[in-house]
């Protein structure tokens, strides 16, 4: 050990220790430099998040701004009051009153209900009834997601189909009133409600002058304002093949506006090896059978429209949906059963696939 002793006493040990120290500090410095948690400064205003239920679904809000908390609560209140007007399940709602009215009698509607119904009827007209606000007798028969969910027999379906026709609704635009032209016509505006809810929430964010606000109501999204550094919002689209509702297949950037998705995965059941999902074709009375798995719609200002169009485009199928999208100035993402993804409008060159099993096929 003589050499070691000599070594220890020598100058080289000082050199060794110094170099070890230098090396360590250098590495440490690089580590800290790479560590985002240590060098980034926190944003001044942490976002406020607020989860609740309404319209039979989860409502999640994220808001940033001085009045974020109040804005979210007001948004929830206005969604609940919208539900009380739109839901056919609530006896005092506009829709329930209309559904129980005698044919020929005008029913006075609130402006909110009237606006939603107008959009639904407009899309019904432009799709020749592929979207049907009068679907309730049929959807009640199947009762997807309800306690009476079952496969109806063909006679039952045939017996309700004559009542599924939007042409039996007559609208008086000047007085916000509506009458049914036939008995047993029953409306269901559920296909527009969540998109509409997003619009009401965004309106509250605007009123409370938030920096930004994000509302998600059962798969429909409303976006308001700007994030820090004017970064766009990053929105994911759910993987329609996964049973996990947090699993996505793609993300896209968007500045503001509304998004809705309709998919075969939402409410469904399998009987005798046949898969039945909740998007019904108003003409056949059976779930839509085409190659689509999901349709996502974007519109810059109309949330109700995105919700209605997502269902309408799913029923129509990709080819026929394209002209409809053009007409309403909306953009779409179609996902088919082979995981081929087709994009239009704002989604083109913007949608980023995150699940390698999917690919863009424009």
């Amino acid at each position, binding site marked *: *050990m003589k050499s*070691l*002793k000599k070594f*220890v006493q020598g100058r080289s*040990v000082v050199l060794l*220790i110094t170099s*070890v120290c230098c090396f*360590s500090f250098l*590495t*440490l410095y690089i*580590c*800290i430099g*790479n*560590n*985002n*948690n240590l060098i980034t400064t926190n944003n001044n205003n942490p976002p406020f998040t607020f989860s609740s239920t309404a319209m039979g679904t989860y409502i*999640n809000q*994220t808001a940033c701004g001085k009045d974020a908390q109040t804005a979210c609560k007001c948004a929830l209140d206005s969604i609940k009051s919208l539900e009380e007007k739109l839901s056919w399940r609530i006896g005092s709602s506009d829709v329930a009153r209309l559904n129980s009215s005698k044919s020929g009698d005008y029913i006075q509607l609130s402006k909110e209900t009237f606006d939603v119904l107008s959009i639904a009827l407009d899309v019904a007209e432009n799709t020749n009834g592929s979207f049907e606000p009068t679907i309730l007798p049929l959807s009640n028969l199947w009762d997807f997601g309800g306690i009476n969910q079952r496969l109806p027999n063909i006679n039952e379906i045939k017996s309700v189909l004559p009542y599924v026709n939007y042409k039996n609704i007559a609208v008086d635009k000047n007085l916000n009133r509506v009458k049914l032209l036939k008995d047993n016509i029953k409306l269901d505006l559920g296909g527009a409600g969540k998109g509409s809810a997003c619009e009401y929430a965004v309106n509250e964010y605007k009123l409370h002058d938030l920096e930004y606000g*994000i509302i*998600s109501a059962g*798969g*429909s*999204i409303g*976006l308001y304002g700007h994030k820090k550094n004017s970064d766009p*919002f*990053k*929105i*994911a*689209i*759910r*993987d*329609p093949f*996964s049973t*996990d*509702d*947090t*699993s*996505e297949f793609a*993300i896209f950037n968007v500045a503001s506006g509304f*998004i*809705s*998705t309709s*998919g075969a*995965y939402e409410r469904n059941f399998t009987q005798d090896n046949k898969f039945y999902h909740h998007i019904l074709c108003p003409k056949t009375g059976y779930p839509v059978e085409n190659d689509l798995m*999901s349709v*996502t719609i974007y519109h810059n200002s109309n949330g109700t429209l995105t919700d209605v169009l997502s269902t309408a485009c799913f029923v129509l199928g990709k080819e026929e949906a394209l002209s409809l999208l053009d007409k309403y100035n909306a953009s779409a993402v179609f996902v088919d059963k082979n995981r081929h993804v087709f994009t239009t409008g704002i989604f083109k060159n913007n949608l980023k696939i995150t*699940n390698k*099993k999917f690919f863009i096929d424009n």
Partner: protein
Amino acid sequence: MITFKKKDILILLFIILFSTLFIALFHLLTPLGNIAIIEKNGEQIKRIDLSAVDSPYIVEIDAKYSAKILVEKGKISFYEAQCPDKLCKKYGKISRKGQNAICLPSGIIIRIENSNDKIDSITG
């Protein structure tokens, strides 16, 4: 016969202490990850934002040997596994970027990522 002098031991201790400290520091300074990705047979089946976990919960993954995965705020671990070797549980709770926990027999992999691509919302 090698004999150590006091000074020899001192310098050895110094080196050991320093390297231990250094490794610990290196580990501590690896950024925490915010996203846990669960893969089954190479396919991503779940993506969990660990920073958004309020209270711990268990995710059950149905595989050749099914496994229960414990998700906590900022960390994730194999909690119960049906696999024969139970090696996956030995990974413990992982929380840092680049760490992973693997259950080979069942084909389940948990990875931690640090994503700045934090999603604002999901539609569907």
